[in-house]
C-alpha cells in the first residue's frame, strides 16, 4: 500500500473555546477577532460557527480551537466557555469539559452551581454600559476577558478592532478599545487565571492565510485562472460569490449577479463557450434548479465548475446548518445520462486545492465538475499555508499527454483547455470521436473553428443526428472521458490512512475527514487500530483503491451526516459490502468523540466475534 501518513500525535497545546449567545449579540465578531489574533501567532487555529437563519435572536455560537499542530476538527469538548444568556448556557453546558472554565453574566444566566467547573460570574453587560454607555459592547468586553485568560497582547487586538470597526468612525473604535480594556481589567480584578501567554508565542515562521472554506473556494478559483463567475445569493454559499465579486475584477475578471440560479449557470455556460474558466457557487436548492443546464454542459462538453455548499434539507430546510444530503442528487440528478465529476473536499486547505483540481478536471475532460462542500467547511475558518506561487505550471493548450498532478502547496499544474491545431481546423470536428473521448474546443473568434454546440444529439461536427448508431457512439464518447478520469484517479496518491492490516475500517467523505482522523487517533491511544479511507472523488469512485481497502476487512464503519446513508447506498451497490452505518442528521457536524464511540462499539463486537471464532 502507498504512503501511510505518520502524523505528529503529541500536542502540548490544545484549547477549545466557545462563545455562545444570541444572534446579533456580536458572538461571531468576538470569536472572529479572537481567532484572528491567535492566527497571527505560530499556533494553528480552527473555528466553527453556527447561527440561526433569522437576522436577530436564536442560539448562535462560535467555537475556536487553538493547537500547536495541524487541527483536523472542531474538537469534542470545550475548555473555556463564555455564555451570554440562559439559552446559550442551557444549550452549551453539556459540551464543557469537567473542570473547564465557565464565564457567564450573572444578570442574565442562572447556572447549576453543582457543576464541576471553574465558574467566573462577570457582569459583562453592565461593564459595557458603565464603560461606553451601551450594552452593545459586551462582546468586546468578553474579548478583553479572553485576552486576559490567553495572554493576548492588546496592541494587536486594537489593530484588529480598528480594521473591523474603522469604517464606523473613530468614536466606535475608541469605545471598543475601552471595552476591551475594561474586560481585561475586570478579569484581572476578579482573579481569573491566566492559562497561557500567547503574546510570548513566536510569530508564525511560515506564511499562512486565515480563511474560511468559502473563501478557499474563491481564492482557489482565482489561483486556477478562473476569470468569470455568475451567481445568485444562496445561504450558506453566498460568501463565495461575494469574495469573487470583490477580487475577480482586480485580476481582470468579471462577475455578474443573475436573476436566479438557472440564469447563473446559463451565464457560466455561455462564458465557458466563450473560452473562459468559469464557476458558479450555490447550495442544494440552487443545484436542483441548475440540473437541466448541468446536463446541457455535459452534452455541449463545456467545462464548468459548480460549488454546492450543502445545507440541511430538504426544501428550505436548515439554511445555516450543515448536512451531507446532496450527494445522490449531485451524482444522479440528471434526465438522461450525462457525465459529470463530483469532488468532495475535506477541510479548508483541501477546499483550496480541490477547487484548483476541479478546474483542471473540468477543462481537461470538458464536463461539469461539482465541488461538494458543506456549511461546516464553508463557515469554518482555518490557518492555511500560503502556496508557493513560483511552483505554478501551465499545461500547454496543445499538450494532450501531460499527466496532471493533484495540486498541493508545493506543486500546482494549471490545465488550459485543448484547442484544435491548424491541421484540425481544416476539417474541424468539434466532437471528434477520439480514443480518450476528449476533442479540442475552438475558441470563438478563431477562423475556421466555427461550430454548432447543440443540446440535441449531434455528430462529430456538431450537426444534429438522432440516428441509433450515432447516439450510441456519442454517448460512449462522452462517457469514455469519465473512464479516463477514473483511470487518472487510480494513479493518484492513496487516500488511505492507518494500519492497512487491521480488521476494522472506517470510511467517510467530505467534511467528516477531520473528525474521523481524530477519532482514529483517539482509538489508537485506547488500543484499537483502524484503517481509514476517504475518497475525494465521489464520482467516479477510485474503485481499485476502495476494493483494495475492503479486502480482508471484517468490519466497515461508514460515517456520514444525513439520515438515510446516501454514500452507503452507493458503496453497498458498487462493492456489495454491508457496512455498519453511523449517521448524524442534526444540522451539526460530527465531533471526534462521537465517531470514537462508534469505533469502540464496533471494536467490542469484533472482540466478541474473535471469541466465538475460537
Amino acid at each position, binding site marked *: 500500500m502507498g504512503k501511510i501518513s505518520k502524523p505528529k500525535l503529541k500536542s502540548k497545546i490544545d484549547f477549545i473555546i466557545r462563545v455562545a449567545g444570541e444572534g446579533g449579540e456580536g458572538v461571531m465578531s468576538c470569536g472572529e477577532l479572537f481567532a484572528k489574533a491567535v492566527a497571527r501567532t505560530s499556533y494553528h487555529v480552527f473555528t466553527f460557527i453556527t447561527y440561526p437563519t433569522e437576522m436577530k435572536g436564536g442560539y448562535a455560537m462560535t467555537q475556536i480551537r487553538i493547537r500547536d499542530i495541524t487541527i483536523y476538527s472542531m474538537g469534542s469538548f470545550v475548555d473555556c466557555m463564555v455564555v451570554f444568556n440562559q439559552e446559550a448556557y442551557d444549550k452549551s453546558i453539556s459540551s464543557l469539559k469537567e473542570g473547564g472554565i465557565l464565564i457567564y453574566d450573572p444578570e442574565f444566566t442562572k447556572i447549576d452551581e453543582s457543576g464541576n467547573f471553574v465558574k467566573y460570574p462577570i457582569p459583562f453587560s453592565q461593564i459595557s454600559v458603565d464603560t461606553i454607555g451601551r450594552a452593545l459592547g459586551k462582546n468586546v468586553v468578553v474579548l478583553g476577558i479572553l485576552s486576559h485568560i490567553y495572554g493576548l497582547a492588546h496592541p494587536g487586538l486594537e489593530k484588529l478592532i480598528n480594521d473591523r470597526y474603522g469604517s464606523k468612525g473613530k468614536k466606535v473604535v475608541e469605545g471598543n478599545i475601552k471595552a476591551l480594556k475594561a474586560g481585561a481589567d475586570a478579569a484581572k480584578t476578579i482573579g481569573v487565571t491566566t492559562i497561557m501567554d500567547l503574546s510570548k508565542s513566536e510569530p508564525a515562521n511560515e506564511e499562512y492565510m486565515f480563511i474560511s472554506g468559502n473563501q478557499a473556494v474563491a481564492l482557489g478559483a482565482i489561483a486556477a485562472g478562473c476569470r468569470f463567475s455568475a451567481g445568485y445569493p444562496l445561504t450558506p454559499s453566498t460568501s463565495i460569490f461575494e469574495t469573487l465579486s470583490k477580487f475577480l*475584477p482586480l*485580476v481582470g475578471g*468579471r462577475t455578474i449577479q443573475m436573476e436566479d440560479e438557472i440564469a447563473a449557470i*446559463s451565464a457560466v*455556460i455561455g462564458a465557458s463557450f466563450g473560452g473562459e474558466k468559469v464557476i458558479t457557487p450555490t447550495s442544494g436548492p440552487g443545484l436542483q434548479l441548475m440540473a437541466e443546464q448541468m446536463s446541457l454542459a455535459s452534452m455541449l462538453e463545456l467545462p464548468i465548475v459548480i460549488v454546492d455548499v450543502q445545507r440541511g434539507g430538504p426544501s428550505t430546510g436548515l439554511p445555516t446548518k450543515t448536512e451531507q444530503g446532496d450527494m445522490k442528487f449531485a451524482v444522479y440528478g440528471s434526465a438522461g445520462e450525462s457525465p459529470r465529476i463530483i469532488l468532495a473536499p475535506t477541510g479548508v486547505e483541501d477546499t483550496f486545492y480541490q477547487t484548483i483540481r476541479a478546474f483542471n478536471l473540468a477543462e481537461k475532460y470538458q464536463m461539469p465538475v461539482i465541488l461538494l462542500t458543506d456549511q461546516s467547511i464553508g463557515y469554518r475558518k482555518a490557518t492555511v499555508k*500560503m502556496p508557493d506561487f513560483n511552483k505554478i505550471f501551465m499545461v500547454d493548450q496543445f499538450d494532450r499527454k501531460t499527466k496532471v498532478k493533484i495540486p498541493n502547496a508545493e506543486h500546482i499544474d494549471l490545465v488550459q483547455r485543448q484547442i484544435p491545431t491548424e491541421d484540425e481546423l481544416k476539417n474541424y470536428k468539434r466532437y471528434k470521436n477520439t480514443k480518450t473521448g476528449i476533442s479540442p474546443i475552438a475558441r470563438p473568434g478563431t477562423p475556421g473553428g466555427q461550430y*454548432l454546440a*447543440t443540446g*440535441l444529439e449531434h455528430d462529430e461536427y456538431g450537426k444534429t443526428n438522432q440516428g441509433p448508431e450515432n447516439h450510441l457512439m456519442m454517448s460512449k464518447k462522452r462517457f469514455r472521458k469519465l473512464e479516463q478520469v477514473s483511470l487518472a484517479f487510480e494513479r493518484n496518491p492513496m487516500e488511505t490512512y492507518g494500519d492497512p492490516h487491521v480488521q476494522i475500517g472506517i470510511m467517510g467523505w467530505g467534511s467528516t475527514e477531520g473528525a474521523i482522523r481524530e477519532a482514529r487517533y483517539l482509538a489508537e491511544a485506547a488500543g484499537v487500530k483502524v484503517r481509514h479511507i476517504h475518497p475525494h472523488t465521489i464520482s467516479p469512485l477510485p474503485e481499485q483503491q476502495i476494493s483494495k481497502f475492503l479486502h480482508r476487512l471484517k468490519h466497515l464503519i461508514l460515517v456520514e451526516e444525513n439520515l438515510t446513508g446516501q454514500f452507503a447506498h452507493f458503496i453497498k451497490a458498487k462493492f456489495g459490502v454491508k457496512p455498519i452505518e453511523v449517521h448524524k442528521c442534526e444540522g451539526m457536524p460530527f465531533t471526534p468523540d462521537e465517531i470514537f464511540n462508534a469505533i469502540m462499539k464496533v471494536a467490542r463486537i469484533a472482540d466478541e466475534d474473535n471469541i466465538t471464532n475460537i
Partner: protein
Amino acid sequence: MKIISQTFKTYKSAKIKPVWCPGCGDYGVLSALDKTFKTLEFKPEDIAIVSGIGCSGRFSHYFNSYSLHGTHGRALPTATGLKTVRPDLNVITIGGDGDGLSIGGGHIAHAARKNVDLTYIILDNNVYGMTKGQSSPTTPLDYKTKTAPYGVYEESLNPIAMFLAYNIGYIARTTSTDSKGMLSILTEAIQHKGFSMVYIMSPCVTYSVLPYAKLKEIVKPLPEEHDTSDKLSAFKYAYSDEHMYTGVFYKEEKTSLDERLKEVFNIAKISKTTSEIMAEFK
C-alpha cells in the same frame, strides 16, 4: 496563414439546411439576417448565435458562425454570460414567443437592466409550432388550440409594451415578409450599443393563428411623426387596438454592461496578482 480580405457570399451553413415547413416566415428572417451580416461586413468567426428551443430556436444551426443551441428559455442568460467575457464578439440571441415570453420571459427584464450589448430577435408565430399547435403567450383569447380546445382562457401578452416598461434601449417590430424593413432594423439594432430587441411577426403556416393575409391587414408602419425618443408615444402605438404598428418604437443610447463593468474595474483601480490577493488574507 495567409489572411485574405474577403466579402462572404453567404453566412449560411453549407452543411445544415433548415427544417422549417415550406412557407414558414422564418426563411425570410434567415435571409434578412444573412444580408445584415453581409452589410455589416462581419467575419463569420466573430459572430456568436445563441438560441433556445422551438422552430426559431433552430436558427443557430443554419449559420456558419459560433453557435450555441441551448435549453428552452435560457438563451438570453447564456448569451449574457458569453457577451460579458467576450465583448469583442457580435452576439445575437434568437428564439420564439414560447421560448422568449413564456419559459424564458423572466430573463428579459434582467437582460434589459444589465443593458448587455446584444441583439435579441424574437420571432412570434403566436403558437407552439414545433410541438404541434399548443397555446403560446401571444395566442389570442378564445382561439382554439390543442391545449385550449374550448378556446384560450388567458389574455395574450403585449410584448412591445412590456419591453418599453423594461426600459430596453432599442425596441422595434417588423414582419418576416418585409425584407427591407428587417434589413434596416436588424442592421440598426445590431449596431445599437446595449440591449436591443427586434420583434418579428413570423406567421406559422401549419398552425395558422395569424395568417399572412390577416397580418397584412392589421400591420401598419409607425407614422413618421412618431418620435423614437418619446416613450409615451411609443406606449400609445404599442397599445393600439386597431393596428399592429411596425418600425422602431423606441431608441435610447445608454451605458452598456461592458462599459459599466469596465467602470467597476476603474473604481477598483489597482490590478493585483493572485499572490497579492492571497496576501490580504494573512
